[in-house]
């Protein structure tokens, strides 16, 4: 029977894995909390304001105060809403945002699941996140929410293609789908990083990443000036907070992936300094800063411009560059591309 084969060793493995998941998710959630703080501070400084500075030293406890406030608030379910799906929406958003972190390596040994098809797994899992948005928008039984969901669905599906093609370039250069191997392929200092041979793909990936996470200037899904707050307009309290957490977890995920795929992950930019997690953190932090910088700088795209950029600019660029990379690999100069 089942209980006979589930012996002590299996239980130990299970408990150990659960502990490791906790050790990953807790710092991630803290990172999310302080990313919101960083966002408000940085955008504040960019707009010559101070930003949050009341709760705790320099406002450092502000995210905690926000979390407590959201936890205490009532979750209102609209009377016309589809109750089951309304509750399911936020869960469907946060689950993929966290599940994708399982294969992200932090150093060459520090990774929860070092699987062969890591890059494919990340793509597949992150592509599931759109369901939460659609389900939430539809189940709210509100026109604004539904419009937001429709916009988001079309946008995410469009940019996923360009993003996938950009990743094809990376896996051709690395000749592996394993994220640890992809980083190891960039060993040897700054000039070995894939950002140089794959520069067009890097730009496409970064911008498509902003679009995939529904961040400004691609935030038409929640465009507050047109459709109030888009797909999550009917959500309150913790249900809303879950959408918020997922958005920021996805932002960190895209930043971490950009770091791993194009910026050499945990590898040091110069050979005389040791590699380590600190480099991963610095690079991811820099990409996250770019996200915030974009938000403070660019006005929101018009919807038809978003579609044009995705389909008529990014996809052709990636296809051309994949042909260039694969063609160059057949020549004696192929070493430049991996």
């Amino acid at each position: 029977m089942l209980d006979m084969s589930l012996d002590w060793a299996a239980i130990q493995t299970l408990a150990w894995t659960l502990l490791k998941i906790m050790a990953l998710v807790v710092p991630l959630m803290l990172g999310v909390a302080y990313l919101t703080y960083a966002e408000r501070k940085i955008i504040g400084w960019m707009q010559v304001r101070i930003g949050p500075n009341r709760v705790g030293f320099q406002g450092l406890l502000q995210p905690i105060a926000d979390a407590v406030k959201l936890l205490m608030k009532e979750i209102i379910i609209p009377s016309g809403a589809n109750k089951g799906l309304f509750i399911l929406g936020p869960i469907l958003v946060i689950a993929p945002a966290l599940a994708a972190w399982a294969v992200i390596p932090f150093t060459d040994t520090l990774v929860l699941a070092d699987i062969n098809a890591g890059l494919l797994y990340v793509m597949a899992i992150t592509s599931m996140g759109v369901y939460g948005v659609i389900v939430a928008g539809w189940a709210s039984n509100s026109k604004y929410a539904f419009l937001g969901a429709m916009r988001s669905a079309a946008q995410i599906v469009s940019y996923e293609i360009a993003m996938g093609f950009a990743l094809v370039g990376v896996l051709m250069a690395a000749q592996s789908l394993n994220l640890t191997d992809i980083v190891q392929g960039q060993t040897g200092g700054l000039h070995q990083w894939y950002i140089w041979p794959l520069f067009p793909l890097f730009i496409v990936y970064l911008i498509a990443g902003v679009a995939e996470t529904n961040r400004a200037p691609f935030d038409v899904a929640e465009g507050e000036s047109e459709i109030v707050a888009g797909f999550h307009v009917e959500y309150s309290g913790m249900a809303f907070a879950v959408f918020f957490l997922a958005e920021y977890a996805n932002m960190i995920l895209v930043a971490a992936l950009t770091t791993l795929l194009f910026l050499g992950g945990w590898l040091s930019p110069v050979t005389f300094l040791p590699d380590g997690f600190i480099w991963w953190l610095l690079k991811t932090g820099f990409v996250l800063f770019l996200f915030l910088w974009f938000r403070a700088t660019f006005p929101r795209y018009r919807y038809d411009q978003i579609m044009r950029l995705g389909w008529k600019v990014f996809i052709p660029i990636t296809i051309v560059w994949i042909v260039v990379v694969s063609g160059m690999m057949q020549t004696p100069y192929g070493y430049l591309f991996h």
Partner: protein
Amino acid sequence: MTYTTAIFYFFAAILVFAGLRVITARNPVHAALFLVLAFFTAAGLWMLLEAEFLAITLVLVYVGAVMVLFLFVVMMLDINLDKLREGFWDYLPLAGFVSVLLMVEMALILGSRHFGLEVMGTPVPHPADYSNTKELGRLLYTDYVYAFELAAVILLVAIVAAIALTLRRRKDSKYIDPAAQVRVKRNDRLRIIKMQAVKKPQAGEGEA
């Protein structure tokens, strides 16, 4: 019962339940979401067979893209369920015939003659560093390269045909040409003329 078998039955039960709900759910959006669950669970079963590339691709393509578009369309349709169910008994004989035909076809192929234990045997588990993706890629681009290229060309033709069939140019629709927007020069839109700022009032004028 080993751990893997337990997981198999767990996934299989969810798959059968989700499949049943796809055809019994009254709300088409619920049906589409159950289809998503069915796909995802099927991917889990394939993962148990160590076919990680196919499993992940199933999620990526069907769950991540195809079903999103399905859901997109289903949500926008105004479906009247009673009207849909109207001719149920009229269509039943034809539908029954088609389903019996499908069953017979499946029985012919999937019988124990081709998939029995003595024919297929228990699959040998692969070591952890075995890459299913690499193996599939090698087969597709060497042994089956002609079939693969043929399929690619047929798909390309389908894409071009789909675009050609739906593309229509309307003279009266207004759209923006971004290239023209970028190329625009100041002189195309703006004309600077020289003129005196203010006319000087002449002496003795205005009072009359």
